[in-house]
């Protein structure tokens, strides 16, 4: 009979490994996999407790987690694909635009962000005709 603590230790190790991976890797797919690993650590915990208590609550939860994780994986991979398409890179530090205005971007000096290939600009059409006059009252509150 393997004691409960052993399961918990395995779960914790999985969780911490995932966490460390999530915090240290800059590749988005690796980060996603690390997050999955954390989930697995939690799932082991739940199953272990279910066994310990002798009921199925934990198992049911785990099934839920697996389902949700599957959905999440589908969505996340789709998102990652979209992100890759715009910047041609999987480096997460390229996505800092959501920071508050007036702050410098944080750059990792040890491993610099790869230069992005410059994209061909799309051709612009010259506007034709005269734009209709738009009198916008300044006094809106």
């Amino acid at each position, binding site marked *: 009979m393997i004691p409960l603590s052993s399961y918990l230790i395995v779960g914790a190790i999985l969780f911490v490994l995932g966490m460390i991976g999530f915090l240290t890797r800059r590749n988005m797919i690796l980060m996603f996999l690390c997050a999955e690993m954390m989930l697995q650590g939690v799932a082991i915990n739940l199953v272990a407790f279910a066994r310990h208590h002798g009921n199925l609550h934990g198992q049911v939860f785990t099934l839920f987690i697996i389902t949700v994780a599957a959905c999440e994986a589908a969505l996340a991979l789709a998102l990652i694909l979209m992100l890759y398409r715009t910047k041609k890179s999987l480096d997460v530090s390229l996505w800092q635009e959501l920071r508050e205005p007036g702050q410098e971007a944080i750059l990792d000096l040890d491993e610099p962000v790869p230069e992005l290939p410059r994209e061909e600009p799309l051709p612009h059409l010259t506007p034709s005709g005269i734009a209709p006059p738009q009198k916008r*009252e300044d*006094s809106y*509150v």
Partner: protein
Amino acid sequence: MPLESLRVLLLCILAIPAIAAAIVAALGPRVLPAIRWISLVAVLVNLILTIILGANAADLLQKRPESLTKPAFQPICVPGDPGSQSETHATQWDLLRIQFGDERNTAIQFYLGLDGLNIWLVLLTSFLMVPCVLVSWNSIQERGNEYYAWLLALQTAMIGVFLAFDIILFYVFFELTLVPMFFLIGIWGGPARREAARKFFLFTLTGSLITLLGMIGLVIAVYQQTHVLTFSVPELVSRMQAELALQSPERAAFWHQVQTYVFLALAVGFAVKVPLFPLHTWLPHAHVEAPTAGSVLLAGILLKLGTYGFLRLCLPLTPDAALSIGVPLIGTLSIIGIVYGALCAFAQEDIKKLVAYSSVSHLGFCMLGMFALNATGIAGSLMQMINHGLSTGGLFLMVGMLYERYHTRQMKDYGGMAARLKILSLFMVFICLTSVGLPFLNGFVGEMMILGGTFDLRSDQVNGIVFAVAGAAGIVLGAWYLFTMLQRVFFGPVKEPNHHGSLITDLTPRELAAMFPLAIVCLLIGILPQPMLDTARRDINVVAQISAAAYDRAHAAAANAAPQAPEQQAAAR
């Protein structure tokens, strides 16, 4: 006139401005003349209906029995009142039913009514709207439909506050006044209108949210003790009286604490609105930036919402706290406000700002009288509310008319206007005299009663005579800044600001139509104030008796505590 039709009239004066506002807003900005006329007709019709209602109701109110068995408000002309036989005229029109535990059903009600405290304020509101529409006639050219719609909506909200007898309804209307005024200042105001509008809105909103806390807290406290959940103000007042009359020490301790918090919470919102001394800084900004009609309504009516709130809710619902905290605190703030407002007014260069600060000073007077907590002072305070509405409203109208001609409000730009604009100056001097409180004009009566009431103030913490001396100083200072303004702007050698060649005329018939009735009413109130007092007497006595009972309780408590004190000392030895 039968009571039933009076009830309909009461609903009409609330509904007509709202309907007119909707019509005007729907018309679109292109048909400005039609919009003006519709607004004018609406406010005139409303004024006439209010006068009819007021005359009939005043008659009924004067006939009420003088003696009070139990101090409680008894509004008349309550729409939705099932029968006229019942003593308390309660409405049956529920807005929001509340099932609370297994107690009997209760509701937030659409509870409107007239009594002696609000009838004259409602009349004042309807009356001041007419000059407001008239004075905006030419000065508002852009987005006229929205302007008049907001103006009329504001009237509905203001009348609603005065008429409401349900504490939540009161609050709803109270907050509703903010929105139209916010837009009136923010869209049609002066150069710094946005800041002023935002400050006005946030400042008063913050205050009144705390007031809402106080209101709900009080309702819940009453529910806790009596297991009756009610939002009706008369009901709350009589429950409170019954509770406070109980001779139980635990209850007394409970209510002491509750009253303190509730009073402070209620007072914050109303004090911002009044405005009392340290909370007044939104007022000069809002006044200076607001269009003329906005200033008139702001000074004339909106500030009265604060004083009226004190009178209607604070004094009757938390009488002990009003005595123990209100008199020293609010009284002191009032006298500071009187002197401070006057000094600030004197130091201003902008005429409109001067008038704005004079409001701080005058409203200080109003609060001082109210917190004398006796019938004389409260009556004076009520008179002062009406009089300040007329006088300061008039002053803002005059300043607006002057501004419309020369587009400057700086005193140094003017001089000797009395020789240039004779009729305008005549009215200006007259309105200043009413504001200074010259006898046989409206300001005098209120000031005398406030001084009398303050002298008669019964409190253990403060001496009323000290307050009265400060009040008297305010009378002198009031004359000082207004007469200095008159001297600088209207007397001396003629000095006209540059008006870029535009024709400067004396008052037009339209402006005369705005000012003349106002002046007549000022004179009339000064000569015949007694009908107003007769109408309000019973309700003033209600408040005064509640306060007197609080004083007696405080004294009884002190008398009980006094014999124990030596024993405790002996025990300590």
